[in-house]
């Protein structure tokens, strides 16, 4: 009995990580000069179907699939809720269950390209003219050093500071003049806590998200985590200590961060939706997620840029997604999938009728139209798009001016080049320590973190 139990447990432990090994096979890559019939019948799977929780977005997605299939009778689309998951992506590719196309965050594009886990689509998307439409700076996120293209960037954004306009008003602050430096954020947070009793500022601290937001605060102080090539750690700097000291002092001295230390984006959104958070740093898309999942008054949400240290602006962390393709796909599948990406993600920018129809449908389903931000396409295409859909925009641009005005001024800095997710996960405890130990030696914390990250990136 005991023997069997032991083996069973060993099987579970070992099997968890080992089961996926069953389907190993050789690398497949797109042929250099694909010969294929673009009109041959083909079936593709597209990932990122919004969950049933986000009803409006799901309906828009499925309607688009129907419309695409009507316009391309030879293409059959199967939808899948598969979305990026750091842990299971390798198994998806190896097991052959990766959708023909799905989105991969900027954090991981370099890694999956280097690993040969996604298809080279230079010779597929090139002739279709898709790549010409993409903003060249953004396209770099989907290319290797030799300039081959492995995906189509479809969203790009800088992190912002989301704030609760209602709490600002209750605290006697002007919601149309949000704080723009860290000193101003501290003052505003203190006032909100004093006047309303809720935390004025909260920050994600759990696991990878904790390190992600901490990295954004380091950028905002003028520091970096890795050098641009990702070959060296640059974390051990006064700027990193300042970033840590700011939240430490807000928590311990100002007492403007409440008492809970551990937050993920999800739990933070819950706090925000319950009117228990004044400000927090997150992607501006949080606006849409709050709308899709929580029944809250959207006019209370404001967004401005990530606060900058004195002497700035220094930088905002750039994030986004690239549509990437299954390396085992046939050229016909790659072609159909690239056309789908062009249709679904870019159609609204390039075709007035699609843009208007899309916007109309989203509004009717209670979704968000016209969320300000950056565009993966050229700024001209984006401006044109916003003109087409002007009648349907249900986001008050005045609540976002702090964010939109900053995009041209604040340098946008990409995520750490080497093993970003791992680095983020490793940085989280550092932030937690600053918030749970009043007497923590912040300088020592940073230098410890720096040597741990050195170990991570030395794996290559």
């Amino acid at each position, binding site marked *: 009995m005991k023997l069997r139990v032991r083996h069973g447990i060993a099987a579970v*432990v070992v099997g968890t990580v080992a089961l996926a090994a069953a389907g190993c096979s050789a690398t497949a890559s797109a042929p250099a000069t694909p010969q294929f019939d673009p009109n041959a019948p083909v079936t593709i799977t597209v990932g990122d179907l919004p969950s049933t929780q986000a009803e409006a977005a799901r309906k828009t997605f499925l309607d688009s699939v129907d419309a695409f299939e009507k316009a391309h009778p030879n293409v059959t689309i199967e939808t899948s809720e598969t979305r990026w998951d*750091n842990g299971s992506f390798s198994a998806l590719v190896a097991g052959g269950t990766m959708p023909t196309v799905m989105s991969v965050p900027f954090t991981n594009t370099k890694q999956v390209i280097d690993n040969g886990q996604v298809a080279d689509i230079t010779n597929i998307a090139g002739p279709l003219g898709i790549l010409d439409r993409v903003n060249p700076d953004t396209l770099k996120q989907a290319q290797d050093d030799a300039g081959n293209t492995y995906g189509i960037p479809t969203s790009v954004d800088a992190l912002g500071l989301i704030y609760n306009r209602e709490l600002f008003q209750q605290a006697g602050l002007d919601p149309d003049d949000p704080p723009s430096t860290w000193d101003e954020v501290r003052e505003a947070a203190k006032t909100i806590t004093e006047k309303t009793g809720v935390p004025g500022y909260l920050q994600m601290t759990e696991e990878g998200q904790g390190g992600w937001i901490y990295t954004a605060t380091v950028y905002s102080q003028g520091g970096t985590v890795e050098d641009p090539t990702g070959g060296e750690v640059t974390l051990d700097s006064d700027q990193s200590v300042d970033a840590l000291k700011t939240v430490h002092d807000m928590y311990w001295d100002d007492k403007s961060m409440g008492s809970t230390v*551990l937050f993920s984006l999800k739990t933070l959104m819950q706090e925000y939706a319950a009117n228990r958070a004044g400000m927090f740093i997150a992607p501006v898309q949080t606006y849409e997620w709050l709308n899709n999942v929580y029944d809250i008054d959207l006019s209370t949400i404001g967004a401005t840029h990530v606060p900058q240290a004195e002497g700035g602006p220094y930088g905002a962390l750039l994030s986004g997604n690239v549509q990437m393709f299954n390396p085992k796909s046939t050229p016909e599948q790659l072609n159909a999938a690239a056309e789908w990406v062009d249709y679904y993600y870019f159609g609204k920018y390039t075709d007035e009728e699609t843009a208007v129809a899309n916007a109309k449908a989203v509004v009717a389903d209670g979704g968000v139209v016209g969320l300000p931000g950056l565009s993966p396409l050229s700024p001209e295409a984006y401006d044109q798009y916003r003109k087409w859909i002007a009648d349907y925009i249900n986001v008050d641009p005045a609540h976002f001016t702090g964010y939109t005005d900053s995009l041209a001024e604040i340098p946008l800095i990409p995520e750490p080049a080497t093993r970003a997710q791992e680095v983020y996960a490793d940085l989280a405890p550092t932030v937690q320590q600053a918030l749970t130990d009043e007497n923590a030696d912040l300088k020592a914390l940073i230098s410890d973190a720096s040597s741990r990250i050195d170990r991570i990136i030395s794996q290559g």
Partner: protein
Amino acid sequence: MTLQRKAAPDSRALTRSGAGAAPRRPLRVRFSRWVKGGGIWAIVFGAPLLIIFGYFAWGPIISGVVLSLQKTNFLTTTWVGWSNFEFVLTDPVLPKAVGNTLLFTAISLLIGAPLPLALAVVMAELRRRKGLYSALAYLPVVIPPVVGILLWKVMYLPGKEGLLNSILGSVGLGPFAWLNSEQMVIPSMVVASTWAGAGTAVIIYLAALGGVRPELYEAAELDGAGVWRRIWHVTLPQIRGIVLILLLLQIIGTLQVFNEPKLLTGGGPNNASITILMVIYQYGFVNSNYGAAAALSVMLALALALISVAYQFATRRWSDND
């Protein structure tokens, strides 16, 4: 089975009489006898079980061991020898994770082992509504673990407004930081996991207690034994086999604690609740470093095996007297 029983006398005959001395039936005859005796059918019926068991139980173990010696993204694989083990053993987080896991196990044994036994003994003594109480004790087991753990997260909210804190606050205690405190986080988790897991042990103990012969109690009572002496001299010795097995299962289970730290704190604050399984998860599912995840899994499995063997030796004398 048939095959082994039939073959055994033959091989013994061979050894006794020396090679070639006694006339042995030719191989062909023996084979046809074995076939006629149903040997083929034994294999036909046994094979699916053996193959399925081998593939699903042993296959992953072997792949895990193989994986621990490789660096792979499942598309390209290279053999790297012991370097995954070196990487894992030099990870500065590992000692912390091992320490936390051992602390969790130790506190779990202190609280989680005697509690269900005590509950079961008390319930066994009850004359009425025994079913109701055992159902109540088992109820937390029915709640899906993730839901149960998230409920505890609400209970443990720090600050005055937290559920537990507001209860304790009404008698002038707290507020406590619970999961936000490096010192309190593991004990808090043990309470949550004991609440969730004790029910199963209670039911098993109750069943075992039902098997204790009543005349033993009567005899003890005639000899003038009180409640405590009856428990100590009759109940415990009678169910010690079950107690020992449940203890071992609890040790193995708590050394693999994952749900509580993952859902309650993500391993924080400051890695104060990171456990061995969380490190494995981190390697495998965040860092995509499958080799390191497999290496640490193999080491954990070996450690559990060694602990189990040591446990058996340590408790052998007690079990033998049963």
